[in-house]
């Protein structure tokens, strides 16, 4: 257990000292959302209608952007090979990385989402529903992202291809995520979203560990 904690501490330290990566992601999230009114016009009614979807898309894109730093730095400096000989299994290493990935790339977005909600003229009740849906749904996005990053880690320039692989897999997350914000059917969608998150987070560490250990063969 202490090995797992050491892994978490290390990842958080690296993220904190990572030269403002977290801030960059949050900025990207806000900017993507803030571009929408320029594209569709500042009509408050229209904005309010599409706001939940836009926030989800912005969060989705921001999380895809952060994928490349999940395993690649460790692959490049040789840490990943050594972590395969560690006392804790590779799936636990991936699980620790998954948790910190969510903490440093999803949680800041959720914290910043009120700002975006305001820009997009979202009403308060929708905002709360969106906040819950983001909290429940982003772990699944992080899990699918981890699998995509693990599959592409052995490719020299895999940073570009991971989003292509992850995006189709993440469609159910988007569907249930935005579905749980809409007025009708929201509780069913939220339950589906929670189920999806639990399943993805439970299985992703094993799948990602398998992909990593096969890739370096």
């Amino acid at each position, binding site marked *: 257990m202490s090995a797992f904690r050491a892994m978490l501490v290390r990842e958080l330290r690296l993220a904190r000292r990572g030269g403002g990566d977290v801030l960059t992601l949050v900025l990207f999230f806000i900017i993507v959302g803030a571009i929408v009114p320029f594209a569709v016009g500042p009509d408050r009614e229209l904005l309010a209608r599409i706001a939940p979807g836009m926030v989800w898309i912005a969060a989705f894109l921001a999380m895809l952007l952060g994928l490349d730093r999940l395993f690649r730095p460790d692959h490049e400096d040789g840490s990943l090979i050594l972590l395969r000989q560690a006392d804790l299994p590779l799936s636990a290493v991936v699980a620790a990385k998954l948790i910190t990935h969510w903490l440093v790339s999803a949680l800041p977005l959720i914290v910043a989402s009120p700002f975006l909600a305001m820009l997009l003229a979202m009403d308060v009740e929708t905002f709360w529903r969106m906040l819950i849906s983001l909290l429940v749904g982003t772990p699944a996005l992080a899990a699918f992202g981890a699998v995509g990053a693990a599959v592409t880690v052995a490719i020299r320039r895999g940073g570009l291809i991971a989003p*292509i692989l992850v995006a189709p897999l993440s*469609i159910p997350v988007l*569907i249930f995520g935005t579905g749980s914000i809409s007025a009708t059917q929201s509780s069913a969608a939220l339950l589906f979203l929670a189920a999806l998150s639990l399943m993805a987070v439970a299985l992703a560490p094993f799948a990602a560990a398998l992909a990593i250990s096969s890739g370096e063969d």
Partner: protein
Amino acid sequence: MSIDTTPKQSWWNRIAHPGQFVAWTTPLLWPLTILTAVLFVVGLWFAFFNSPEDYQMGDTVRIMYVHVPNAWLSQFVYGVMAVSALGTLVWRHPMADVSMKAAAPLGALFTALALFTGALWGRPTWGTFWEWDGRMTSTLVLLFIYLGIVALWRAFDDQLRAARVIAVFTLIGAVNIPIIKFSVDWWSTLHQPASVFRADGPTMPGSILTPLFVMFFAFTFLFITLQLKAMHTEVRRRRVMTLQRKAAQGSTA
């Protein structure tokens, strides 16, 4: 931490050898090609001359004879890929790698054809090329997954190393596709009050079923033939690659 790699001689292991696989299956190639061609001729004859027009859709109903087999293959090929992926991961079967790689572009092609014929059919029937209908949407997502896998194959420098990684991804996709299908169906019923499209309406008369079945087998055999041919090509490509590497190594050593 011991790894035992002593070969066991069974039919399974014998087809594991790429050279033997090619030798065994080459005689099948011509008969399969002829069978496929005959099935196509018969199927198309039925489809064009010996099946009724639809009372609503008219002649355009004949697109179905191409569309439905392609839609079936779009899922069947993924099944072939998933089984091959299991072969790669569990038994480390070298021909499973080859089969997985050969199937990916074929699957993408059949899925694209299913979408294309669907769009052609949709235009006169519903008045639009594209409808965000549950079935069409999930087929589109499937196409994205196929194309992602093809891109993944191309991104790896070392094809032998790529196989196991891609097998992992293929299986994740296989687990995910039913979820995607379910979520898209849920989503399309949420956004559309009534579905525009019900193919499984009343039971079809035999005059439609006969050409449909023949075309169904024609396309399936087309896939099998192309798959075998693509596997042979891939085996040869790998042999060339190995020889090139050997030659390069020989010149430096």
